[in-house]
């Protein structure tokens, strides 16, 4: 393993006093001050995240849409221009290689955003699948930074940011005020085009901005300057993880991996078995046969949300057990994939794979927390849903 890579914003994080941690081959900010304070800022005002470690693969060519329909499980050719779609890339056996966001930037031009740790693998797998298609793949991550502003005040902050302006000539047809969730537009920052997606991984409204590495520091500082009076704070991976967990969003390596199909993970909706070719026949895509069979069979385990009835949180890899009379852990019925004390809800929350017979809402289970059975109950996800106004 080589040394962890640094993002174009590394010096900013160091200057802000961040604790840095290796993550997916990168050195990333874990927290700047306090996990809880950063988490709460995102729920109540806004947080600023450096996500430059995410992989970014540009797919261009006349067959780009057909290629992505073949290579991914989603119906990517149906994504409208300047739209975004959450999708997955699966192996032939239906197992999940990565979860992705695909942006359609123009006819025949897409960006595929992959998890940092999987970026190389995804590029390789996509490349293998290009055989019959007129497309070009390019890893465009190196020259770019990805900065996210997430929270109820995110839109206000974007509008208040010096140097960040709308330009109808390059926007792609949308005004910032009309930008929908899971759509994007181009704006200018200090004259240079940036891509702004209304996407995120926190359960809040928010934006993700791709900017050239050259302008990354200037944009980061401009956002902080505009946002600080509105409650914006820089936020690290620790807050990002507790935010996504509250929002019931899977994390690759925890809820998703190569032993899991999208169906066990409760994400079957991303698998589009209804994809058809121009002549109306079912479109073959990588993993289709395995996934079609899998959809019809009873799952051996399902992903559920768990709410702790005590104060001790469950952690990833702890056993889920049957609840007994005392604190002695009962029979193992599953395994925790992610768990933490929920800062917003004030009690422990967790995601876990359990056997179907104990997966119903209200099912009273326990988690073996270092030898002691702590009571947990199955609850619907997401654990937290942002207030709608």
């Amino acid at each position, binding site marked *: 393993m080589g040394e962890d890579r640094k993002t174009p914003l590394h010096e900013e994080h160091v200057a802000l006093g961040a604790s840095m941690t290796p993550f997916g081959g990168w050195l990333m900010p874990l927290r700047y001050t*306090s996990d809880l304070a950063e988490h709460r800022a995102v729920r109540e005002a806004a947080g600023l995240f450096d996500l430059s470690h995410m992989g970014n693969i540009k797919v261009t060519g006349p067959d780009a849409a057909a290629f992505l329909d073949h290579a991914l499980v989603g119906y990517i050719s149906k994504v409208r221009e300047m739209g975004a779609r959450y999708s997955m890339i699966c192996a032939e056996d239906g197992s999940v290689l990565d979860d992705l966001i695909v942006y359609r930037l123009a006819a025949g031009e897409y960006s595929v955003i992959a998890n940092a740790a999987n970026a190389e693998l995804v590029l390789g797998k996509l490349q293998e699948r290009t055989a019959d298609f007129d497309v070009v793949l390019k890893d465009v991550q190196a020259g770019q930074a990805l900065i996210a502003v997430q929270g109820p005040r995110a839109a206000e902050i974007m509008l208040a940011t010096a140097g960040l302006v709308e330009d109808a000539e390059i926007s792609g047809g949308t005004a910032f005020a009309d930008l929908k969730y899971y759509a994007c537009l181009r704006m200018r920052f200090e004259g240079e085009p940036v891509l702004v997606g209304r996407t995120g991984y926190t359960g809040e409204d928010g934006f993700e901005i791709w900017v050239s590495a050259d302008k990354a520091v200037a944009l980061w500082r401009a956002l902080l300057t505009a946002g600080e009076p509105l409650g914006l704070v820089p936020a690290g991976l620790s807050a990002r993880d507790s935010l996504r967990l509250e929002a019931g969003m899977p994390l690759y390596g925890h809820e998703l991996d190569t032993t899991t199909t999208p169906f066990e993970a409760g994400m079957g909706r991303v698998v589009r078995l209804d994809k058809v070719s121009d002549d109306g026949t079912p479109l073959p895509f990588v993993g289709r046969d395995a996934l079609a069979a899998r959809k019809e069979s009873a799952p051996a385990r399902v992903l559920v949300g768990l709410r702790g009835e005590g104060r001790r*949180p469950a952690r990833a890899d702890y056993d889920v057990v049957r609840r007994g009379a005392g604190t002695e852990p009962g029979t193992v019925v599953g395994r925790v994939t992610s768990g933490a004390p929920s800062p917003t809800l004030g009690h422990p929350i967790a995601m876990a794979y359990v056997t179907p017979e104990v997966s119903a809402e209200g099912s009273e289970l326990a988690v073996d927390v270092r030898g002691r059975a702590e009571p947990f109950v199955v609850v619907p996800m997401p654990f937290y849903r942002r207030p709608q106004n």
Partner: protein
Amino acid sequence: MADFPENLKYTTEHEWLDESTPAVIGVTDVAAEALGDVVYLELPDVGATVEAGAVVGEIESTKSVSELYTPVSGTITEVNAEAVDNPELVNQDPYGKGWLFKVEVTGAGELLTAAQYAAHTGS
């Protein structure tokens, strides 16, 4: 910046000890900083007899769990109930309101001075 009061003794497990009677024990600001936000404390039972160096509880933060050791042998006389209810006291005031438990001491393990502890942590 790290702060190690001169009047306290320390351990390599990042605990501090106030050698009054009974002795008061907590974790250092180095430990508090490394743990992140503390959300749960499991402290020993009052009346329990403990051996220096033994695990007597747990400190759980948003991201991780650490074992709590006792630097001295003896009998637990009191635990900080306020800190159990408000674990953030460990982060906010590790040498004050964030103290963890008191021991009627019968023997001590290896203890460090503030200077030795500072050298140990490299600060």
